[in-house]
């Protein structure tokens, strides 16, 4: 008798479980909640500090790049994909003249950005569609990498302080 009862109990339990499963999927079907992002038409906002592309910061007020061609980034680069040259200006300060970064060998490790003591290199978040048709297009110079920092991304005073300290220590 017990076995027969268990048989029917199992069937009832199984039916109940199937019903629970169906109710879950039916709920999702009826609410029509959509998590898909239609990529080319819709884009999710990326976090401000996500690492999409490396850019050279251009200072619009002084009409020059922040880079002083100290070569720290080129030395830090594990793949030696950064090549740059600089000159000494009449006022005694060094300025970068040419800057080349080969993105076909760059691994986006970020060592160059970390090594930069003059707030000249940075990661930007919005330019993440970097496919090209020819490998040569990945070799970018300072014109391609020119990037003026928008006001809302300007370093806060407490963040800017260590950079200034590092700059003075390096000078």
């Amino acid at each position, binding site marked *: 008798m017990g076995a027969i009862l268990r048989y029917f109990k199992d*069937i009832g339990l199984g039916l109940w479980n*199937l019903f629970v*499963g*169906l109710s*879950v*999927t*039916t709920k*999702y*079907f009826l609410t*029509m*909640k*959509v*998590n*898909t992002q*239609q990529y080319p038409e819709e884009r999710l906002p990326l976090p401000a500090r996500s690492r999409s592309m490396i850019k050279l910061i251009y200072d619009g007020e002084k009409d020059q790049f922040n880079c002083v061609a100290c070569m720290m980034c080129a030395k830090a680069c594990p793949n030696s994909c950064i090549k740059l040259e600089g000159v000494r200006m009449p006022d005694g300060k060094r300025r970068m003249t040419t800057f080349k970064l080969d993105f076909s060998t760059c691994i986006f490790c970020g060592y160059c950005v970390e090594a930069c003591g003059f707030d000249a290199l940075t990661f930007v978040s919005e330019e993440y569609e970097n496919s090209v048709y020819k490998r040569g297009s990945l070799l970018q110079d300072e014109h391609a990498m020119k990037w003026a920092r928008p006001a809302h991304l300007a370093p806060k005073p407490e963040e800017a302080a260590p950079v200034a300290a590092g700059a003075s220590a390096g000078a």
Partner: protein
Amino acid sequence: MITGEQILKTVSGLLHQGLAAAGVSFLAPVVDRVAAAVAMFLGISVFVMFLVWMERKVSAHMQSRIGPNRVGIFGLLQTVADAIKLTIKEDIKPVKRDKVPYYIAPIIAFVATFMGMVVIPFDRGVSVQDLNIGILYVIAITGFTVIAILSAGWSSNNKFALLGGFRSAAQIVSYEVPLVLSVIPIIMVTGTLNLSAIVEYQAAHGYWFTNPLYAIPVLVSFLIFITSATAEANRAPFDIPEAESELIGGFHTEYSGVKFAMFFLGEYIAVIVSASVAVTVFLGGWLPPLPMLGFIPGFVWFMVKLVVVIYFVMAFRWTFPRLRVDQLMAFGWKVLIPIAILNLLLMGVVELFLAKGA
């Protein structure tokens, strides 16, 4: 009020007039059948395309996705694009195939299920052939698919295809039994195998589920029927003959292009046929759900009920995990068949002592 029968009479009347004008009115019976077959084929093809789209949309929304939305409005033409792609595909064939069964299998798979549509009454008086053994005919003719699947599996000369064919044979033979047993209680009450006569019985005596005597046995019958019909159509959670994670594609592993499309079409037509029988036998076919809604033609109600039943078959596929082979056999023989027989007994008791005595 317009009914399906009037439309049918008008169309066939025009056909017969045309034939009489051409002086070949003795061809009328043949032309009737051919016209019905062509109309069925076109209608079913379009409906299958809609169902494939619907299945993709249903599954998408159950998984918080969007589904097809690029080709046509709401992606409705996606299936048309898929069909064009399938028909112009290269037909890749195994070299060491068994040629005759290899070619015949997809044809049987399609024709056997398509033939099942012959007796389905879409409206009062609207069916290709109103056979007096309708249910028997449907169950018998759709059982032919096992031959198609087994010969496809055997002739492909591929171990996965062969395993799929064997599994399918075991499965369809096992689930044919509860399928038949689940319909018998209805036949016991109505006393006929004719599908439209069963609907007329419901028209005269009210829906099964509104009658407190019949509600429970008919509900059990309905659940068993839907379960076995899902298994008969090789759909998940009973899709072990083509279980893609175990057998690649099962019996249709070695088929491509149009031949694969025919298997695919056959699977969907099998779903349509079983759902049509379920609607006709258990849910009152073309009858409106409420008498006051009778101004809407019967075939519309039939299609609405059909789509609702097919929605549930789709929901099963995207909700339940696939059964293992031994679980499938145990479920068929140890659960469905005993319950179906008990249900038969219950219905007999109800019919003999309660319904007739009252």
